[in-house]
């Protein structure tokens, strides 16, 4: 899923202060799974903002809504009836959702309540870790199902570097050395000989390096 974390309240207050009526919109997908911007978090943020306003002797008119997704126009359309009842939108979706709401409601300022972080997976309840950087040319088949582009601090395709220590990355004992993980996996699969195959320099054109990307399915696009 795409993971995110709530921005500091101070920063959100700066967005919201000039506006009297806010539409606070959550998203039922990724940000719900990582407990950052789902229905529950919408309720919490609304209450927290209200308390902050009350401290200043004011109140904030907040409408709370949670869409199925904010990255599909059909769902974003559901906000239309409320668009003239509010002065601004505060979105608790990832960056994709915030932008789609902004694109549809051009006359309303749309603010992000979250900092979108990474594409990741749950390691266990309450812990999410980065797994994929969307390089556009997946090499997981060669590296035993573990991605060095997302999980190596230096994006080495022929790792590990000389800083790997007891299975941990040189930058922190909290970060696994992904090349240790890959080596262990290759051993478990009986594929150690793969290790010495040299992975050639990557073509970053399929990644962000080639510019903003788009997928067009001719059978689906009208």
């Amino acid at each position, binding site marked *: 899923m795409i993971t995110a974390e709530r921005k500091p309240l101070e920063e959100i207050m700066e967005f919201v202060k000039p506006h009297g009526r806010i539409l606070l919109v959550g998203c039922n997908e990724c940000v719900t799974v990582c407990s950052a911007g789902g229905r529950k978090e919408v309720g919490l943020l609304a209450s927290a903002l209200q308390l902050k306003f009350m401290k200043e002797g004011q109140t904030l008119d907040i409408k709370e809504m949670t869409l199925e997704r904010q990255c599909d126009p059909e769902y974003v359309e559901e906000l239309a009836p409320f668009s003239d009842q509010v002065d601004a939108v505060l979105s608790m979706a990832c960056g994709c959702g915030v932008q789609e709401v902004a694109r549809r409601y051009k006359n309303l300022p749309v603010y992000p309540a979250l900092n979108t972080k990474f594409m990741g997976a749950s390691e266990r309840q309450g812990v999410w870790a980065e797994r994929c950087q969307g390089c556009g040319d997946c090499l997981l088949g060669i590296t035993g199902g573990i991605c060095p582009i997302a999980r190596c601090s*230096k994006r080495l395709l*022929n790792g*590990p570097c000389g800083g*790997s220590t*007891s299975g941990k990355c*040189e*930058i922190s004992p909290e970060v696994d050395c992904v090349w240790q993980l890959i080596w262990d996996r290759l051993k478990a699969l009986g594929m150690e000989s793969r290790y010495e195959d*040299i992975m050639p320099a990557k073509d970053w054109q399929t990644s962000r390096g080639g510019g903003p990307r788009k997928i067009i399915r001719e059978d689906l696009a009208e």
Partner: protein
Amino acid sequence: MKTESVLEKVLASGNLAVTSECGPPRGAVPEKVKEKAELLRGCVDAVNITDNQTAMVRMSSFAACVLVRQMGLHPILQSVTRDRNRLAIQSDILGAYSFEIDNMLCLSGDHPHFGDHPQAMNVHDIDSIQFLQMVKGMRDEGKFQGGDDILNPPKMFIGAAANPFADPFELRVARLAKKVKAGADFVQTQCIYNLDKFEQWMQGVRDRGLHEKVYILAGVTPMKSAGMARYMKNKVPGMDVPDEVVERMAGVPKEKQADEGIKICVETIERLKEVEGVSGFHIMAIEWEQKIREITEKAGLYPRPVV
């Protein structure tokens, strides 16, 4: 002979080669480069010029190499993939060769986390092994990494780093094999204090015949103090300093510790001379370059052979 490099000539002649290291200054102070390099004149066959070591901004390795070459010494251009993409790297190589710099070391580089600009984006367009492949392709095929022909292709003597002490140990020989396959002509190892572990690695290296495909320069660093020994043991990733070494340093009074450090360094060199497959030494005396002359003399490596 793959190049005109003096370092290659010394190694090819069967002599033990000696290299050392110079860190450029944290400012536009060319005199500092020249002072350090001058201390090494006659003691080494070539000198590494480091590249933004520990991710701290310093005068560029390329510029410092030019200064050193113009003094009549032979620099080894260290280059890290952390700070530049494949265009910039190839461009630097063309520039360096145009100044008659014909040795280089292809590295990944320490993470910006350790340096003075942790906010910087690390580049890593290619890694150190792809880097070796690229430089070999430039030299032997005369082509850029993208495939086009190069006018007057640079004939670089290509080096890489090897760390027998990093984890996982079982991969460290395979890693050298990979670097040799990619194009390394010589490697310099991380500084050696744990001779048993080094000899274990060398056994693995010899078993695969790698010592005949690549020149191995054993890294040594003299300790200045017991504090330095402890720091290197505990705070530097990929460094293996056995307790006996720390105890030996701590066992002498403070004023004598520097001399003890030099003694240990010379003893290490003597022991390494006996290890089959070691073709020379890479003596790193950071901010202590004045000791290189003494170390090479005591270890019987001075004067340098004329080839």
